[in-house]
């Protein structure tokens, strides 16, 4: 099912949690709502589920306007951050509960519950109580409970944040597998960029209630729409070198680097910009424009993570271990074509 958010705004008493948000989410995709804490992503999810009413705008499921529909009529499955499994019911009772309210006959209820339990691999835990399950198992049961009523849309609110690191990896693969098996359109809220990058078909990146970019994961990384997107994605974070444009070249504020790239042609002289470079986009080059000093070197196997200092500006880069960098070395760096962006320093907008 295709989900269309049409100029959605949510105002609380004194804050606007989501403002003028428009996006289309494609049928059958797993979409991540990504953003730092407090960016309005959970608010948006709650509006999709119908738990929160919208202040302005419309929500469409396919062509149906569901803006005013209560949660139970929207045909959604919701997985809560802390799962909210009913503690007094067994796993079977939990999975069956949504069907019970739909007055599905008992035999069909059991059949469907067993089928979905097999899909999420909890079929051998049917008689346990939630308190007797591990975090990952509770998560699976919560997903089963959300899926058992064949929802049009599956909503997951930070589903992995209560799990330890190893389980988190395992469960995100699981969520991906289950989503692909069922083909249900899924919206997944997270603040973890790595999680979002690894499992989603599309990522919707938000900041302070405003949509930043709605794109394929690799596009978010390779073609960030603005400074925030570039900063938010990538580990280690992208390196920002402040400077000004002059005569089609970039002049660093720190040190005396003059970077000439086609990128800067056509930018007005004197414009204050950031040259943002991914850590993997530096190369050692005796004729490179950036003269800097090596301040730290970490071995990472084939590559090294080196810290450089250019004037007062620090940045990190992956360098081939064969180069044998030592702390205190003075080297010159050049830039690759990929992973190099220019952003306006005031507005953060990308300059192409």
């Amino acid at each position: 099912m295709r989900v269309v958010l049409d100029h959605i705004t949510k105002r609380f008493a004194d804050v606007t949690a989501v403002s003028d948000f428009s996006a289309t989410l494609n049928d059958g995709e797993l979409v991540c709502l990504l953003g730092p804490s407090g960016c309005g992503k959970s608010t948006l999810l709650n509006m999709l589920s119908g738990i929160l009413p919208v202040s302005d705008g419309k929500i469409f499921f396919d062509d149906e306007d569901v803006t005013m529909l209560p949660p139970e009529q929207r045909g959604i499955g919701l997985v809560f951050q802390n799962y909210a499994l009913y503690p007094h019911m067994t796993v079977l009772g939990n999975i069956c509960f949504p069907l019970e309210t739909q007055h599905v006959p008992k035999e069909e209820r059991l059949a469907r519950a067993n089928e979905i339990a097999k899909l999420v691999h909890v079929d051998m835990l049917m008689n346990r109580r939630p308190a007797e399950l591990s975090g990952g198992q509770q998560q699976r049961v919560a997903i089963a409970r959300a899926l058992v009523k064949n929802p049009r849309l599956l909503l997951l609110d930070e589903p992995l944040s209560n799990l330890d690191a190893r389980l988190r990896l395992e469960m995100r693969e699981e969520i991906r597998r289950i989503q692909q098996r069922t083909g249900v359109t899924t919206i997944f809220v997270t603040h973890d960029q790595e999680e979002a990058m690894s499992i989603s078909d599309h990522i919707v990146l938000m900041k302070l209630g405003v949509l930043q970019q709605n794109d394929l994961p690799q596009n978010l990384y390779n073609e960030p729409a603005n400074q925030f997107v570039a900063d938010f994605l990538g580990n280690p974070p992208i390196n920002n070198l402040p400077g000004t444009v002059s005569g089609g070249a970039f002049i660093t504020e720190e040190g005396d680097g003059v970077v000439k790239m086609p990128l800067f042609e056509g930018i007005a002289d004197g414009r204050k910009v950031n040259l943002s470079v991914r850590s993997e986009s530096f190369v050692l080059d005796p004729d490179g424009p950036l003269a800097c000093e090596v301040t730290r070197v970490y071995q990472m196997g084939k590559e090294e993570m080196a810290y450089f200092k250019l004037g007062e500006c620090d940045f990190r880069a992956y360098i081939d271990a064969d180069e044998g960098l030592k702390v205190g070395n003075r080297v010159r760096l050049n830039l690759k074509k990929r992973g190099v962006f220019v952003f306006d320093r005031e507005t953060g907008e990308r300059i192409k």
Partner: protein
Amino acid sequence: MKKEKQSVDRELVDRSFFSRVEPYLYLLPFFLGIVVFTLYPVVNVVLMSFKEDYSYLSRSFTQWGFGNYRIVLSNRYFGQAVGNTIKYVLLVVPISTCIAVVVAYLLNQKLRFNALFQTAYFLPMVTSVTAVGLSWKLMYNQNFGIINYLLSFLGIDPVPWLVNASWSLPALVIFGIWNILPFTIILLLSGLQNIDPQYYTAARVDGSKSLRIFFRITVPLLAPTIFLVCIVNTISSFKVFSELYPLFSGKPGPFNNMYTVVYYIRKAMTDRKYAVAAAAAIILFLFIFAFTMIQTFVRKRMERRGQ
């Protein structure tokens, strides 16, 4: 190794003798109070109940034995008292619990004038039972009472609440329920507030209506508190006396028909039959003990059975 550890321990003990004793010193005053006013009387009651022909003034008795228990158990008023008390408990506890669950549930909603309702419901708790009992006595009055006045609008003839033997138990039970409600509601309300509202959201998203949420989510999650309330109220209802006393002007019902166990005990005491009263008190204790055990057993069974 062991020797070394012991010597270290001794050193520690020597050095910190005061710090080890200190907490007990703080406990001592209250503990003395408990010993003098609770433990001593309890032990004394148990002993006294086995002293035959006990004289309170001379503290003399003829022999140890079950004489007092025989007196109590063969007394027809005691039999009546046990019957009345059990009926009272079996009516008051379930009815008051059911009403309290509903009221607490409503009070837990975000209602307008919530503070007003809460104050109104909790008012009986800060009033004296005896004083309120006198008001109820007036309200129950067959000719001038407000209850019969209100019932007259429903076309019901005046009910002889306090003057007819068959109406004295209902009168006592209604007053008892009213009296026990606030405490029950407070406990249940705190139980309700401990339920994570996310369960309600989850159930609502799953399409459950309020009534189903109430019976399938709220009540089961509240079950531990409900059991607690039942046990506490059973114990206090078995000791019903202060509700009875003002209602019938100190008499056990209009025709001595509303004896309760505690009334019987009190009567024995005013008759200076302390040992008999003690025996009756022990029997009451056994009843309460048995009922509480049954409730605990039922609870364990239900927990194991699950939903």
